[in-house]
Each structure stands twice: as structure tokens, then as C-alpha cells.
């Protein structure tokens, strides 16, 4: 009996003991719709972890990152998760893909009792307090909180009664957020005048923009993939609308503000821009230069943050790592963001999102010929 028990324990422990590295698996939309947003996150995360490995790794061990492309397809994400868990024996599973891939990955992670970390993809509500024990998120996006931050900014800026329009892409997460924002605007004394939901690939956004413009809003808020946010805005401007537009700062926001050059087009986000020129920005530049990444350096902050979070979680994970040990480390984590965000990223047993969410707002200043900050870090407490 003792011998059998020993054999079973040995078999169970073998895959971990046989590996000489912390093994982490990512399922990401490296191709397909959304690849422009997700691929740079994975590239930067990998470059950061390679940099950590080059410096000697974590706790004297290397980090092995296995990346599987899911093309933003749920079936491929499920297959990737199965492979990463069963074959590669990863201690953390990472999702960097569209929200449609969440359900199959969550289901596989729960079956294997391995923590699932959303790095660069929209944080699911299950990471908010009271958090699901296995789900964690460091991404900039925060459903509901982003609308709260955006509408608070509009209220602080508006000198006249706010007639607000809403624009979103016809995907579940964006529609839910814009519905929430519409409801919230009423409680904040604003008048919602129109809501336009455009399909994911619209050949021309002008018909949607026409309806929105005809409702005569003085502000428009949009929370969606960048293509939907910015094409609706550009079409509205071409139709002669001269109101103010607030939208989410995706990875490309800093470059896009400089391309669009419109003084009333605001982006709100949680990651510092490269114009701040922080010491950590120099580090990102150096790391990505060494890795020879194709993406513009301004797109890489989110992936760099994901790398920092993984490094911090593994530092607190004693060798040999198991999913349970990693989980314990992730349940009590505080990562210094070095200025990339308004404060540290903190996870507790109850809160796998962050305890405070900080927002900044930027726009293009034609006079200065540069992107300028309109609002500095404003914190929102993340509570139950």
C-alpha cells in the first residue's frame, strides 16, 4: 500500500520536478480580428520575461513562456488550454484574446485548478471582488469602472448641460458597458440622446455616425475596440459635428492622437504614455530593442506590465512550483508599477482585479503640436 501511494505521488510530482523552469502558457489572438491589439501585448510580455531570464531568471530558475495562437476563436482557445494544461503542465494559464474565448478557457482552468490570468484582455467581472478563486487580471480595461471614470471626466469638463451620445461595437462586452454608461449618465444628470451599435466589420461608419450626429449630442462616449471608436468619430467629424468625444485609450492611442490631431477628441486610460519619458519607459525601449519587436514601442506598456506581474508572482512562488503555490502567491501580491500606472497593482484573496483603478485623460493640443494630459490620475476604489 505504501509502495503504491509512493508511486502515485511520484507520478504526480514528476512533471514538475522534471522541469527546470517555471512553465507558463498563453492562448492569444496572434492572428485574426483583434490581433493588432493582442499580439503586441504577448510580444512585449515575452520580451520582458526573456530579459528577466537573461538576468538569471526568478529564484535562480528560468521562465518558459509557451504561446499558442487562438485566432480569437473559442474552439482553438479551448484546444490550446487543454494542450497547455495536460501536455505542458503550465502553472499559470494566460488569456490575451477576445472575450469570446473566456468561457472555454475558464472551464479548462477550473477543471485543472490552475490560475487563469487575463493579461491584456478585458478583465472579466469575476476578477472583481468577491473574486473567483482562480481568475486574475491586470489589464487596463475595467468594465463599469471605465464608464464611471469617463463620465466623471465629462461632468468635470462640461460647462453646459450634457447631451450625451453613445457608440459601441456589436460585441457583448462593449454593448453591456455602453448600456451601463447610458444608465449611469442619467443618474449623473446627463441626457442620453442616442446610442449607435455598429457591427464588428462595418464597410462604412457614416450611416451610424449620421444617426448619432442628427441627435445633436455635445458629448459622445465610446467604449469598444479602437476601429469602432475612431471610425465613428472620424465619420461624425466629416459630417460636420463639432462636439467632444471621449473614448478608451487602447494600445495605439498615443500614436492615434497624433495622427487624428483633433483638440476635442479625448482618450481616457490607465497606462502612462511614453511622452512622460519615465525611467521605466527607457527600460521598455531597451528591452524591446534587444528583442527586435516589430510593434511600435508605444504599444508595449500593457505587455510589459503583464511581464512584471508574472515575475512578481513567481518570485513569491517557492521551488518546485505547483499551481497551488502560484495561486497562494497571486492571492497576496503587490507590484510596483514604476509610474506606468497611478499606483501599485494589488491583489488580495478577495480582489483579483486591483484595489484602486487610476485614470488619466489626454488629447491633442494643436498649439503645442503634441499630445497633452487633460486630467492627471484620478483614483476609483474597487470595492464589492
Amino acid at each position: 500500500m505504501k509502495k503504491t501511494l509512493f508511486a502515485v505521488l511520484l507520478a504526480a510530482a514528476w512533471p514538475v520536478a522534471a522541469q527546470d523552469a517555471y512553465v507558463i502558457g498563453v492562448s492569444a489572438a496572434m492572428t485574426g480580428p483583434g490581433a493588432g491589439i493582442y499580439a503586441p501585448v504577448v510580444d512585449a510580455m515575452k520580451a520582458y520575461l526573456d530579459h528577466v531570464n537573461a538576468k538569471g531568471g526568478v529564484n535562480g530558475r528560468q521562465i518558459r513562456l509557451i504561446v499558442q495562437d487562438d485566432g480569437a476563436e473559442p474552439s482553438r482557445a479551448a484546444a490550446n488550454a487543454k494542450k497547455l494544461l495536460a501536455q505542458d503542465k503550465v502553472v499559470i494559464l494566460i488569456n490575451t484574446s477576445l472575450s469570446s474565448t473566456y468561457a472555454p478557457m475558464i472551464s479548462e482552468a477550473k477543471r485543472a485548478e490552475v490560475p487563469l490570468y487575463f493579461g491584456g484582455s478585458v478583465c472579466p467581472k469575476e476578477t472583481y471582488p468577491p473574486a473567483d478563486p482562480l481568475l486574475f487580471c491586470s489589464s487596463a480595461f475595467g468594465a463599469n469602472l471605465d464608464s464611471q471614470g469617463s463620465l466623471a471626466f465629462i461632468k468635470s469638463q462640461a460647462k453646459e448641460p450634457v447631451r450625451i451620445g453613445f457608440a459601441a461595437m456589436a460585441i457583448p462586452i462593449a454593448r453591456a458597458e455602453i448600456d451601463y454608461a447610458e444608465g449611469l449618465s442619467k443618474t449623473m444628470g446627463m441626457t442620453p440622446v442616442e446610442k449607435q451599435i455598429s457591427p464588428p466589420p462595418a464597410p462604412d461608419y457614416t450611416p451610424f455616425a449620421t444617426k448619432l450626429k442628427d441627435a445633436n449630442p455635445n458629448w459622445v462616449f465610446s467604449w469598444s475596440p479602437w476601429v469602432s471608436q475612431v471610425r465613428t468619430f472620424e465619420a461624425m467629424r466629416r459630417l460636420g459635428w463639432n462636439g467632444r468625444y471621449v473614448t478608451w485609450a487602447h494600445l495605439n492611442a498615443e500614436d492615434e492622437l497624433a495622427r487624428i490631431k483633433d483638440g476635442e477628441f479625448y482618450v481616457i486610460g490607465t497606462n502612462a504614455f511614453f511622452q512622460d519619458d519615465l525611467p521605466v519607459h527607457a527600460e521598455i525601449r531597451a528591452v524591446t530593442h534587444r528583442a527586435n519587436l516589430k510593434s511600435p514601442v508605444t504599444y508595449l506598456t500593457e505587455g510589459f506590465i503583464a511581464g512584471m506581474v508574472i515575475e512578481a508572482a513567481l518570485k513569491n512562488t517557492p521551488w518546485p512550483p505547483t499551481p497551488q503555490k502560484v495561486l497562494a502567491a497571486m492571492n497576496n501580491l503587490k507590484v510596483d508599477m514604476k509610474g506606468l500606472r497611478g499606483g501599485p497593482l494589488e491583489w488580495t484573496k478577495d480582489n483579483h482585479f486591483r484595489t484602486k483603478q487610476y485614470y488619466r485623460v489626454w488629447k491633442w493640443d494643436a498649439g503645442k503640436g503634441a499630445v497633452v494630459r487633460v486630467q492627471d490620475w484620478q483614483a476609483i476604489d474597487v470595492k464589492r
Partner: protein
Amino acid sequence: MQLAVNIAVLAAIYALISCGYVLIYRVSRVLSLAHGELMMLGAYGLAATASLFSGHPLVAIAASGALALTVGVLVYALLMWRMTGESVLAAVLTTIALGILLRGAMVLAFGTQTQYPLQQLGWTNASIAIGGSGRISAAGLVLVLGTGAVYAALFVFLRATRWGIRMRAAGQNPLLAAQRGIRLHGVYALAWGLATFTGGMAGMLIACDAGIEATLVTIGLKAFPAALVGGLDSLFGALVGSLIVAGAEVLIINYVDPLLSEVVPFFVLLAMLVVRPWGLFGTREELDRV
């Protein structure tokens, strides 16, 4: 007025794309499901030539047009040529495989970031007042005028030129056409070249208006209902079908619910398939099951 402008621009997009579906189907009875990818390749071609011939926008545009035409001919010469005489299903599956291959190759070659060829050409997409209360983007105006010019040129080409008449003959009765000395492979290659050129042109103009996104491929498929509604073997039908589908879409967005805009082209298509499966101007006896 704005409503009419919106319908005209969307119809022009659909018409320019669906013209490629029709040209290939009409001549070779093959339904090309790689048309969206070839359209996107045309857009990337413009971005590439714009950066290659920096400061010479007209040269860049001409080079990208020539590139699209050549790619179409090469697709036939290297791939579809071998499908001649095979079942329709085999040829359609080949185009699906080609589409998947092109999608992967484009990610590898051009990356995943949005590109703005108009900016690379050094031009801006100005807003132009039209008919008092309407406005249209410069790229949208070129799209409408360009689509009109393409259709006019194709009508003249198919009716008044030797190669055009050969194409019609090959489409109507390939066996008889071959017996009369018409080189079918040459005609088919030309059809693929022209279809890729018009699809590529659509891709270039959409990219000039809104940049090149990964979702451009899907827009290629969105024009498919327009081609089917008009009749898959009729160019005039493609034009009318595009107007019907675009009109229904824009009116639904404006008067009913924007969320329905995605389903309305397929609703129109289903209605047409029930009432007249060969489309408004299609040929009844040419209907095939795939």
C-alpha cells in the same frame, strides 16, 4: 440628402467588390471565396507601393493596380488552372484554402497594426459638401465615381472588344468557344486578373477611407449577398443588388435599429432565394448546387 449619399457610398463598396465575384463566376462558374483576402491584398499592395514610391502617389496607385491584376493572373496560372475540368466543389474548396493561406501570409508580411495608405500617399481625406445638406469624404466620392467608371468600362469591354466577346463566349458555352479557337485558359486568367483588380481597387479605396484593419476580409464577404441578389452571372445585376442591399441597410440603421444592419443583407438574400433563387438578373438554367 445625407441618406442618399450614405446609400450611394455603401452601394459603391458592395458593387465594386461583388463585380469580382460576378466576373469569375460568369466566365468560369467558380465561386471565389478568397475574394475578401484578394481585396485585402490589394489594400496592402497600395500601402507597400506608397512607401516604395514615396512622394509619387500616382505612380504608387498605378503600381498597386498593376500588382493586383498580376496577382489575379498568377492565382489562375499557378492554382486555379489545375481546377479546370474538376468539380465546382473542388474549385470552391481551393479558393477557401487560398483565402486561409493569404490571410496567414498577410499577417506575416504586413503585421497586425492598422495602416493608413492615404497618409502614406501624402493626401488627406477631406469632407466635401454635396447637394446642400449632404457631405461625403473625398475617398467616398472617388469610390462612387471609380465604381461607375469600372462598370462602364466593363460593359464596353464585354460588348465591344474582342477579348470581352471571347469572355462572354467562354462563359456561355466553353466547349463551343474552345472549338472555335478561343484559348480558354487565357480568358479565365484575364477574368481572374480583372476580378482581382476590381476587388483590389475596392480594398485600396476602403483603406484610403478607413485604414487597413484585419476585418477588411470580412467586408469582402459582406458584399456577397449583393452579388447573389442581383444574379451571380450578371454585372448589371450586381449593381442593382448592391443598391438594394445598401439601401435596405442604411434605411434600417436610420429608421429601425442599427443592430439589424448586419442581418438585413442576409434577410434580403434569403427573401430573394425563396422567390427567385437565380437572382434578379441571373440566368435560371445556370443555377448550380455547391
